[in-house]
C-alpha cells in the first residue's frame, strides 16, 4: 500500500493544524487521522507531519509510539477491544477473549490474514456496568456475549 497523502488528506491534516489556538495542539488528532487512513502511522508520513506542525520527525515519532491507539503495524479495518479491567475480568472477559480469537481468526494484538480484524484486550473501557465490555472501532457495544462475538465476523464487513 502506498503511504503517500492525497490532497484531501493533506487538507484534513491542515484543518487540525488550525483548529486549536496553537498549531501543535492539532498533532494528536492529525495522528489519529493518519491511523484511520493507513490503519497505522507509517514512518513515511512522519516527515510530512513534522513539517506541517513545525516540529522534528523525532517528536512526531515519539508521540506516535506512545499511544496505544496509534500502531506501527497495520491494525485491522475493524478494531475490536475486550475490556480486561477488574469488573470485566470478574465478569469473564477471558472467555470472550477465547471466542474472539476463534471468531476473528487472529491472536490477541494481531491482525487477521485478510486484514479485516484485529483485536486487543484493553484496559478499563469505562463500561463496567455492561461487563465484560466490548468495543468496536472505538464505540462501546455493551455487554459482550459469546453469541454476539461469534457473529462479529459476519456483521462487520
Amino acid at each position: 500500500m502506498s503511504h503517500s497523502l492525497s490532497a484531501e488528506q493533506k487538507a484534513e491534516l491542515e484543518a487540525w493544524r488550525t483548529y486549536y489556538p496553537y498549531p501543535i495542539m492539532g498533532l494528536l488528532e492529525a495522528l489519529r487521522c493518519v491511523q484511520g487512513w493507513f490503519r497505522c502511522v507509517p514512518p513515511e508520513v512522519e516527515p510530512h507531519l513534522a513539517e506541517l506542525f513545525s516540529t522534528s520527525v523525532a517528536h512526531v515519532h515519539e508521540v506516535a509510539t506512545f499511544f496505544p491507539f496509534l500502531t506501527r503495524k497495520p491494525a485491522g479495518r475493524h478494531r475490536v477491544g475486550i475490556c480486561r479491567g477488574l469488573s470485566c475480568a470478574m465478569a469473564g472477559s477471558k472467555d470472550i477473549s477465547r471466542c474472539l480469537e476463534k471468531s476473528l481468526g487472529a491472536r490477541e494484538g494481531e491482525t487477521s490474514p485478510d486484514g479485516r480484524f484485529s483485536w486487543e484486550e484493553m484496559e478499563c473501557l469505562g463500561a463496567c456496568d455492561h461487563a465484560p465490555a466490548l468495543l468496536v472501532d472505538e464505540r462501546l457495544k455493551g455487554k459482550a456475549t459469546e453469541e454476539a462475538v461469534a457473529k462479529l465476523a459476519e456483521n462487520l464487513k
Partner: protein
Amino acid sequence: MKILTRHFDNPKLHELETYRALGGYQGLAKARGMAPQAVQEEVKKSNLRGLGGAGFPVGMKWSTVPPPEKAPERFVVANFDESEPGCFKDRVLGTRAPHQILEGLLIACHAVSARWGFVFIRGEYADQYDILKKAVAEAEAAGLCGDVKVRLMRGAGAYICGLDTALLETMEGKKAWPRQPPPFPTVVGLMGKPTVVNNVETLSMLPHILVNGGQWFADIGAKGDPARRIHPSGGTAVYSVSGDVERPGIYEFAMGTPLRQIIEAAGGVRGGRALKAVIPGGTSTPPLAASEIDVPMDFDSLRGVGSFLGAGGIVVLDETRDMVEVSHNIERFLAHESCGQCTPCREGSEWTTRILERVLEGGGVEPDLANLRRVGENIAGKVICALGDTVGMVVRGYMKKFPEDFAKRLPAKPAEAAR
C-alpha cells in the same frame, strides 16, 4: 438527593431544547450577570470539590489563576478522559446530559475569564464524542457560547492522560508524561498559560450551584468535622457501581451517604452471596473490608479509613473473590499504564505484577510478601505522579485486609534454624 441525574428519565435530555425547557443554561445566564470574582465566591461557598478523584476545592483552585492583566490568555479544560477501572459515571453524564457539561464549562470559563474552553475526551468514547460535538454545535447556533470558543480533543488510549498535567502535555502534542508541579496548571498550564482543569462531573455541578446558590449545595453535602480533619464536601456525587452487585449502574447520592446505602440501592451483593470487600473509588483506591462499609462517602471520611473517594468507582467483591487475583489484575493494569518517565514506577509496577503472577501460579516464595511491601515503599514519594504511589498502596491494602488469601498461596515460613 439527585442533582445531575434528576432528569435522567427524560430520553431527550441530551437535546438543547429539552435541556433548556428543564431549566438548562439558566445557571450560565446568572453567572454572566455576575462578576467572575462573585462566581468564584459562590462556588467557594458551595464546598464543591473536584470529583475526578483529587477532591480539591474548586473555588480555591480557580482563585489561584493569576489576574487577567498579568496573564490575558487562559484556558479551561473539561477532563472527560475517564479511564480509572470501576468508573463510568462520566460516560453516562456525557451520554445523557452533554449540555450540563457544556454549561458548566462555560460557567468555569466566565469565572476565570477564559476565552477558550476545551473538552478532552478519551478516544474510546466515540459515541459520547459525537453527542458532545452535536451539543456544542447546538449551543453555538443558539449563541450560548458567547465569546468562548469550545474545542474538543480525543485521546488515543493512555490512562495517564486523565492526570491533569499529563493531559496538558497530550494537548500540547506531546507524549503523556506528567509534569512535576509546582508550578500548578492554574499558573503555568496549557501552552504555558494559566489553565483550569476540571472533571466533567465537577463542571456539571456548576449550573445547579449558580441557580440555587452555594449555600444550598453546601447544605446538601457532608458538613465535615474539623476536629477530625474532615473538611466539608458539598452536594452530591455520582457513583459508578459494578462488580458483584445485582444492578450495576450509576447512583447519585449526597456526599456523606454511607457506602452501605449505595450498595443497597444497587440491589446488594449479586445472587445473595456474602460481601467480602468493596473498592470505594476506582481500583487505585485500597479496598474496604465488609465490616467497614458504614463509612460516610466523602473525601476525608474515606481517608480516615485508609482509602479514597477517588472518582467514586465502587466495585463490589463477593465472598468467592480471591484477593491475590484481584490485586494482580489491578497491578497489571498499573504496570501497563505506567508512562515510563520515573524509573521506580516503571520498574516497580512490573516487579509487583510479576511477583503476584508467580504467587498466583503457585510458585510464590516466603519473602514475596515482604518484597511486595518493599518494592511499593521504594516507589512512593520518589515519583512525579500518584500512579506510582498507588502501586504499593493497593497491594498493601489487600495484603493487610485479606492476609489469609495471600498466606494460603505461599509456603509456610521456614523454621528459624533453616534460615
